[in-house]
């Protein structure tokens, strides 16, 4: 796969197409975001506690049933949607930002800087990611910002390795040399010339990153060290489900379906982007 100036960020729009599965996944992601947009309509119902209706099975009035406090589960799953999607996107952005800065610097400067930064990536990769994630999340006060930081700061080495490999491919191509000869500063070369050309493959990594971040947030909230219990989240609802596993299967089923659907859609979108990027590169 050789990169030419034409095959930069513009190339993804000009030539490459998403495979059908990728387009379907994109449609699902868009639908999920639309659901997130209308979710404030359900905020009142999601918060309404009706103890006389607690643990009611799915019915016409409560399509997903109710939880242990009699709150409508459908409304709660809806209200949790923008939280999960937002945290996923923000954490993946943090990860991409740190990953690009570290990986691109390692690839561009090479030598001692590469040796050092590559060791840093290796150190983080050696840890079971949940060990680091739990330590960070448990020691920061529970808030969306803490969860975003914890996930972003533990998942960047994957993005960094991508960025490093991609920068290595393009750093000695003519347009980079030309920019350097024209006296462009290093940050300018990195951001203006290299970033647009390594962006398509990085977007693939970022889409996988969003799926992972959504999953990680749910896992943290499930374990009770993620979002505060007052915030509706799919992992948080699932955390209560084991207590009522004998009488309320719906508490385990529906939030999980929302989570599974979202993670699958982002993973499938990422795979679609990857084959589009490979196709673009091979022509």
């Amino acid at each position, binding site marked *: 796969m050789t990169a030419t100036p034409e095959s930069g960020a513009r190339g993804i729009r000009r030539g490459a197409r998403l495979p059908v599965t990728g387009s379907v996944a994109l449609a699902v992601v868009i639908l999920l975001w639309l659901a997130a947009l209308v979710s404030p309509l359900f905020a009142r119902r999601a918060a309404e506690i009706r103890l006389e209706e607690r643990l009611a099975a799915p019915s016409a009035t409560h399509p997903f049933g109710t939880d242990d406090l009699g709150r409508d589960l459908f409304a709660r799953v809806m209200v949790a949607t923008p939280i999960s999607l937002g945290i996923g996107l923000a954490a993946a952005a943090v990860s991409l930002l740190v990953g690009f800065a570290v990986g691109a610097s390692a690839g561009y400067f090479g030598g001692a800087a590469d040796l050092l930064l590559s060791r840093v990536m290796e*150190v*983080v*990769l050696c840890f079971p990611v*949940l*060990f*680091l994630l739990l330590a*960070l999340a448990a020691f920061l006060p529970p808030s969306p910002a803490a969860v975003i930081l914890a996930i972003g700061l533990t998942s960047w080495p994957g993005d960094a390795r991508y960025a490093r490999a991609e920068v290595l491919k393009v750093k000695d191509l003519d347009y980079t040399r030309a920019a350097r000869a024209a006296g462009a500063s290093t940050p300018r070369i990195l951001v203006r010339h290299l970033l647009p050309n390594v962006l398509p493959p990085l977007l693939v990594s970022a889409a996988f990153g969003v799926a992972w971040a959504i999953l990680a947030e749910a896992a943290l909230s499930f374990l009770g060290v993620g979002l505060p219990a007052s915030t509706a989240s799919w992992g948080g609802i699932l955390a209560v489900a084991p207590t009522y*596993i004998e009488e309320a299967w719906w508490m385990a089923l529906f939030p999980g379906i929302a989570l*599974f659907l979202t993670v699958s859609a982002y993973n499938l979108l990422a795979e679609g982007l990857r084959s589009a990027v490979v196709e673009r590169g091979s022509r």
Partner: protein
Amino acid sequence: MIRYTLQRLALAVPTLLGIVILVFLLLHLAPGSPVTALGAESGRRVSARAAEEMRRLYGLDRPLPERFATWLVRVGRLDLGESFVDHRPVATRILEALPYTLLLNGLALLLTLGIAIPLGVAAGGHPEGSLDRVSGVVLFALYSLPSFWAALLLQTLFSVRLRWLPLYGVASDGTPSGWAGLSDRLEHLALPVVCLTYGSLAFFARLVRSGVAEARQHDFVLAARARGASPRRALWAHAFRNALLPLITLLGLMLPGLLSGSVIIERIFAWPGVGRLFFDSILARDYPVVLALSLLGAVATLVLTLTADLAYALADPRVRDGTEPR
């Protein structure tokens, strides 16, 4: 080869140092201390004087570099200290939990490889064939399936509805001995092992599949067929063997994933392994245990990755001679 080994070992030293420093900083710069955690746990307020005394007792009043040096020297002597929670040696607590996790993860890894390799080779041997298409969809779904949700659904189905398998735990109360005891233990293992396996299975089978699908297009596979090798032999002895090498290096990196999975699965199934020990210790801010387990997890990964890299170099002269593979 000696040169490559030395190079690789030399690179591992700073990584090891980085691991140690990261573990230490992470915990000691964190807000909250075992003293406040203890107070919260017992529901009583710890008086300022008692708190100060405890901080002195645990050495928490010393400056950070001094604490780091003390800790490093002790780790160097393989002395992991004692737990803040029950004052027993950290090593004892870890050794108590380790067999449970090794059993769980060992079985999961065996199942993963035992299913992923034949499945990946069969699917990769006929890309776009019916097996490849079906397994592709199933593996993708398993890959995106959150393990804690799968655990909840399996518990609901097999433990609550059908009552075939126990909900959690290692063994029933008053475990019978002999065959009945063994089958009781296996019943307790079934769900956690399945939950721990399917994720890495999906990950690994997809890699085997793409490796084999790529390798079978090479001329040497065609040449093997031309020399009269059976399709099965060409696939396994030629295509798979060539796809296998890069996969070996991934085995080392699967360990952190398995340990991560262990934390969630052991908690759901009340399995007394290191994953649960880690989680409980985080909540109790039991620094010595958290430090020791993070260190062990990371160092084990480093050693495995190193071994895998060296094995790769031994098998592939392009790596050990410093020429890039592929």
